[in-house]
């Protein structure tokens, strides 16, 4: 019984970690103020 509880705890922690990371995701940021280019840039 104690082994089962230990295994369930491990599984719950893994689920909580992955769900949290996925929910946080990556910030979408803001639209770049830079224009669409009509001149040839000198370098990348």
């Amino acid at each position, binding site marked *: 019984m104690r082994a089962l509880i230990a295994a369930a705890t491990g599984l719950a922690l893994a689920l909580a970690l*992955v769900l949290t990371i996925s929910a946080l*995701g*990556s910030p979408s940021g803001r639209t770049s103020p*830079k224009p*669409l280019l*009509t001149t*040839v840039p000198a370098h*990348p």
Partner: protein
Amino acid sequence: MRRTASLVLLACAVFCAALSPLLRWYAFPRLARIPANQYQDMVLEARDATLLDYGTMRAKKVPKVTIVQTLKGDVEAAGKIGRTAGRPVVVWDSLSYVQGPDGRMVSKVPERYIFDAHSQDPVHATGEMVDGDPVRREGIEFKWPFLTQRRDYEYFDAQTRTSSPIHYRGTRTFRGLTVYYFEQTVPWTKVPMPRTMPVQGITPESVARTGTTRWYTTVRRFWVEPVTGAPVYGEEIHQEELRGGTLLGGRAKVTAFAGHVKMREDYIGHTVALVKHNRTLVLALTSYVPRASLALGLLLLALALWLEARTRRPQHPEPTQPGEREPLNA
């Protein structure tokens, strides 16, 4: 004490073993996404190209034609469309600006491309367009999906406004990266005139009244890094002709542009470095961390079982009872 340690080890083993598939199949599709605010420019060049001189309406050889391609993510539009579509969406506004050897504009074609941030599947929404014409894209454009497969994909061609297969032609090595080589041939097709013409006073409508039409063919080649789905190099053997009508002075056709368009060397180096960096991040989610986590989980499980077995083994042999001693025989 040993019993507690083995239970803690078991919990850690299950944690690590469960983390492996969760990261690969749950977290990866949600975390590996094209950022909505991406801004990227690219310079391509066609050396010794043929270009139409609109003054004389004759094709002439020029040392270089430059194409500047910019992609800019519209975060606000992506948020709005994403909420309606119920999935993360990227909206790219792009501009292909073509410049002649004298620095003057040859053509400029804006596009709005809307797609799923992870799968790169097109998302159809108001505003999807090429040069002001509403379009409905099928397949991909500019970028392949993460974990690109060795198969043909539908690729959208902005000039014809249609999609057709881009064929997987094999695996190659490009600047130290394993890449998939794709090729698409667009046969001669009648295409619309660009809305912005290189000569003041000439409009697509005025050209259409002369009966002259624009035709185009291209062979498109991409070297795609399969983990990120990002092209690290691209080329086009591009030809455009004006055909028929009174504009050509009795000639059947005249070349408007012909050239072998290649990425500029400094942009190749920059793209390869960027893709190598992003490749490591994607591999961490799809391979490195899940595999290491699974291996660690198995190791911890073995350790937990070993500790448990030791706990259950009797520590000292039981002392023998005095009454059970064998009788002595004289």
